[in-house]
């Protein structure tokens, strides 16, 4: 990656917008519970690739918007995504060097971290628990990671975002 002026912020923002649209597209109830965490995947990708541009602050803003979109407590997703972004940026050099399957497992852990924080807040304010099915979106996200990675990478190359 050649160093240069920051470039293509618009592409990053639109990728987050598309992720949010995918998050609220209406699906049948049974499928909706498997819906992967698109915003989380997008955030992880940009944090790995451009840690100096997308990090905790972007995670926080994306999380706030996600809170408003999904009607959760203001700050719930923001806190969770900030944590995800922090871990991602701290370990980006290491994660980038991992083989594909190891990367997938790391992504699984990061997505579960997101869900775990959201669940913690939910339980703290006295909402009921959900059972094992609650964690399925993280697994779906894990299997979608290679696809999402390749797709976002091609976009990043095409628009030479850096």
């Amino acid at each position: 990656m050649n160093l240069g002026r920051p470039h293509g912020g618009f592409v990053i923002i639109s990728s987050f917008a598309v992720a949010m649209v995918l998050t609220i597209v209406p699906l049948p109830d049974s499928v909706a519970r498997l819906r992967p965490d698109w915003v989380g995947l997008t955030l992880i990708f940009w944090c790995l690739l451009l840690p100096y541009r997308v990090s905790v602050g972007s995670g926080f803003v994306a999380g706030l918007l996600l809170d408003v979109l999904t009607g959760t407590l203001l700050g719930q997703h923001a806190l969770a995504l900030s944590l995800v972004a922090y871990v991602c940026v701290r370990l980006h050099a290491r994660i980038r060097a991992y083989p594909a399957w190891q990367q997938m497992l790391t992504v699984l852990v990061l997505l579960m971290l997101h869900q775990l924080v959201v669940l913690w807040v939910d339980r703290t304010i006295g909402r009921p628990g959900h059972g094992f099915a609650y964690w399925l979106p993280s697994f779906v996200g894990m299997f979608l990671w290679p696809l999402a990675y390749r797709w976002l990478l091609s976009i990043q190359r095409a628009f030479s975002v850096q």
Partner: protein
Amino acid sequence: MTVDHRQHHLDSMRSALSVVVYPLQLLVDLPGNTYDWFRESLATRRQLQEENFSLRKQQLVLNTQLQKLEALEAENRHLRALLDSSFQVGERPMLIAALLSVDMDPYRHQIEINKGSLDKLFEGQPLLDSRGVMGQLIHVGPFTSTAMLITDPAHAIPVQINRNGLRTIALGTGKLDRLELPNIPNNADIQVGDLLVSSGLGGRFPPGYPVADVIEVEQDPGRAFSRVLARPRAQLDRSREVLLVWPEQIEHPMEPATGAGGEEAP
């Protein structure tokens, strides 16, 4: 987060952010809307005639029932005047809003509607459909609002049994077709098929609107209370249009004259 949960200082921030995400919601809503528009504009003449005919028939039936209702209302008012009670049955201001077809958190029963504070909506406003009570507004933005359905696990609505006026509370269960009535004593007069109507206690929901039908009563002598389940009347997963009502005299919900009104309903 604590601030959002406990107090309401962040409401303005949430409504500002809701304007930011409004275009996204509109975008997601667009395909469904376009489909509806196409279906309406491409309907054949014959279909329209049939629909027109059935609607006219329905209106006739409803009008007949309305005549009866007017007579009953007059009689009711007369009797209440005799009893010197200030309970009011009658028209309330209403507004029709459409659901935005967007998904929210799958573990919360919330919906997004296309009206907001610009239409003078307020937090806690009751939401109805043509069959019964659906829920109440929890966040109001300028263009959109979020409503919590009565089946959300965090929701409770004061109800009474239409047959005998027994008052209780209906809790959401997290399933779209179930409400739970806790703390009903084993000797309470409640049967399968009883209609639950909103009691108006608490001053949030207007009294007298249908909420749910009792579908299961399990009386276990070993336990202090019986297990009572009910099915909401409103089509929570199917309605496209919802009605918003303005309760009368919202400023004094605790005043005995209006607050106790629900207790005296038949």
